[in-house]
């Protein structure tokens, strides 16, 4: 039992928790809450431990062979810089959202079913991140997607069902395109292991299949990550979910199923070329501007936040599409920051909904005096997303804009700055209408939300404040390893296969 046996635990623990909750949640009171708290806390601990374990591994990579079968005959699980970075992001947000849901889900019936689906979604996302096999990625992607379709419809109101139906059909069409892409790649290279496929693609001459597969993956994963031509499901699906699920969907799901998978397949398997990266940058900038303009006219708080999710993912894709070390660093840093502050914003909207029963901006007002903690954390998150120093959003946006200027794309940098200004305008509107001003009559008696919800919000706000410290040299290994994996490109395959041949 060497140190690599920690890797499959990221899939085993949420899976066991899901079925255990589904079995005993109905008989023993409060058992579902205890099990999910233990499971998510353990996952967070393991992900941070695995990040430090990776520093001492040879070649900064750990490979776990399932069943002892050596790849390419068997499925392997790979933990490298990018995987451990994404694992820490996902499990951090999952822990805080699980703690928040302990109190928030009191208004819905049937908590065991909620926690089962939540745990299955976390299992699917962890599986997508650590797997080293392409079809295994598709299976875990489907597990996470189906759990999220069911979670969006959890409240079973009329509008939630409509949003979930739209999301399910569009998500299934995207999965169909991804499946056909995997089928084409399998027929061309006759292997499914990611490292082996990269090795084979290196010496086979590229015919029309590779750009074709690239477009198919862009359509499929672009829909999962809500880039602009494919974004139409997100403004309906994210507001309709319960607030903790909105935080999970907006915070981590669109990033692991969309951006991470696209990056992994594009940079490490197919090999990035200039045209594809230009398309990614163009789609990123379009997402940024279109979504933030559409967000200015929204009066529903969660719908406004959903449009801002699309816009910030545009920043991430712009950063990664630049392809330079600074650009990719900025993109990945913004991915982590956006998970933190967007989850915090959605949890705040859930707290407002829990206390006052409404999401409409025109009906709230002056809640700042009655809910002080919520108001302060919302202010911190709004300043983060708008990019005001010294919060973490400022650093990542600045790095992306500087990287654009370094590469010479002045137009994209100007668009990024405009997007940032409009984001600030939008959140000043939220602050004014929700927290400042006069209290309406029917909202005079609301109180602050319970302690567990405040705990999650305050912790996420603290990460927002101190997030900029990740640029310090002693903490930069967290991001530098991830950037190194992306920039290594297809020569990454040799590292994985060499690590897999060790016992």
């Amino acid at each position, binding site marked *: 039992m060497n140190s690599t046996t920690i890797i499959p635990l990221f899939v085993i623990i949420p899976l066991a928790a899901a079925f255990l909750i589904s079995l005993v949640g109905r008989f023993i009171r409060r058992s579902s809450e205890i099990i999910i708290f233990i499971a998510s806390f353990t996952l967070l601990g393991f992900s941070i431990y695995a990040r430090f374990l990776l520093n001492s591994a040879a070649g900064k990579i750990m490979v776990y062979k399932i069943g002892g079968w050596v790849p390419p005959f068997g499925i392997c699980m790979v933990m490298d810089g990018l995987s451990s970075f994404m694992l820490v992001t996902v499990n951090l947000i999952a822990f805080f959202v699980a703690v928040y849901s302990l109190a928030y889900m009191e208004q819905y019936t049937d908590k065991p079913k909620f926690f089962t689906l939540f745990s299955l979604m976390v299992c699917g996302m962890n599986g997508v991140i650590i797997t080293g096999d392409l079809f295994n990625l598709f299976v875990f992607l489907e597990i996470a997607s189906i759990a999220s379709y069911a979670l969006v419809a959890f409240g079973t109101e009329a509008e939630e069902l409509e949003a979930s139906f739209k999301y399910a059909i569009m998500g299934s069409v995207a999965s169909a395109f991804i499946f*056909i892409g995997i089928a084409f790649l399998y027929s061309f290279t006759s292997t499914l292991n990611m490292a082996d496929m990269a090795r084979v693609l290196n010496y086979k001459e590229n015919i029309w299949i590779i750009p074709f597969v690239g477009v198919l993956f862009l359509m499929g994963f672009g829909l999962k990550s809500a880039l602009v031509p494919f974004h139409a499901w997100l403004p309906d699906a994210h507001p309709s979910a319960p607030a903790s699920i909105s935080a999970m969907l907006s915070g981590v799901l669109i990033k692991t199923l969309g951006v991470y998978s696209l990056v992994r397949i594009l940079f490490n398997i197919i090999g990035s070329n200039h045209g594809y990266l230009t398309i990614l940058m163009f789609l990123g900038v379009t997402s940024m501007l279109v979504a933030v303009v559409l967000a200015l006219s929204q009066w529903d708080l969660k719908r406004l936040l959903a449009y801002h999710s699309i816009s910030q993912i545009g920043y991430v894709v712009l950063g990664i599409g630049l392809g330079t070390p600074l650009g990719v660093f900025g993109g990945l840093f913004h991915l982590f920051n956006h998970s933190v502050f967007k989850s915090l914003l959605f949890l705040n909207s859930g707290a407002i909904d829990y206390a006052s029963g409404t999401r409409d901006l025109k009906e709230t007002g002056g809640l700042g005096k009655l809910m002080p903690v919520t108001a302060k954390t919302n202010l911190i998150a709004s300043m983060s997303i708008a990019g005001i120093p010294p919060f973490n959003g400022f650093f990542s946006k600045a790095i992306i804009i500087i990287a654009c200027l370094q590469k010479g794309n002045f137009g994209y940098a100007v668009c990024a700055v405009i997007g940032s200004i409009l984001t600030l305008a939008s959140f000043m509107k939220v602050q004014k209408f929700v927290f400042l001003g006069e209290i309406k009559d029917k909202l005079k008696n609301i109180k602050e939300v319970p302690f567990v919800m405040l705990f999650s919000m305050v912790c996420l706000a603290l990460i927002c404040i101190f997030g900029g410290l990740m640029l310090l040299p002693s903490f930069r290994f967290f991001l530098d390893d991830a950037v190194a994996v992306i920039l290594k490109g297809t020569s990454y395959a040799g590292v994985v296969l060499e690590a897999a041949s060790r016992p």
Partner: protein
Amino acid sequence: MTLYFLCLILFCVGLYGVLRKRNLVKIIIGLGIMEYAMNLFFVLLGYRFHGRAPIDAKDQNILNMVDPLPQALVLTSIVIGLGVTALVISIALRIYEKYGTFDITKIKRLKG
């Protein structure tokens, strides 16, 4: 080669159903046809010339078989399709209870 082309035509028929039909149940049927076309395409990729079914039996020693890996993967994919279909059908039934119609042009409360 014509077989792959026919799979593509079946996929496009399913995609037409998802895009242009107005009844919720017809959209779900179109999605089902798309999944059939995908699975069929993946299984057909494993065909080898003069191959036979990849079942190992005690008294036969013919060695050229078709590729068994796509068949195992398609089994998984069929079950995934089953799960999605079951979920989407139950959502459609609940939509009928709440809205009173299956017509998607009338189920339009979320906009903007």
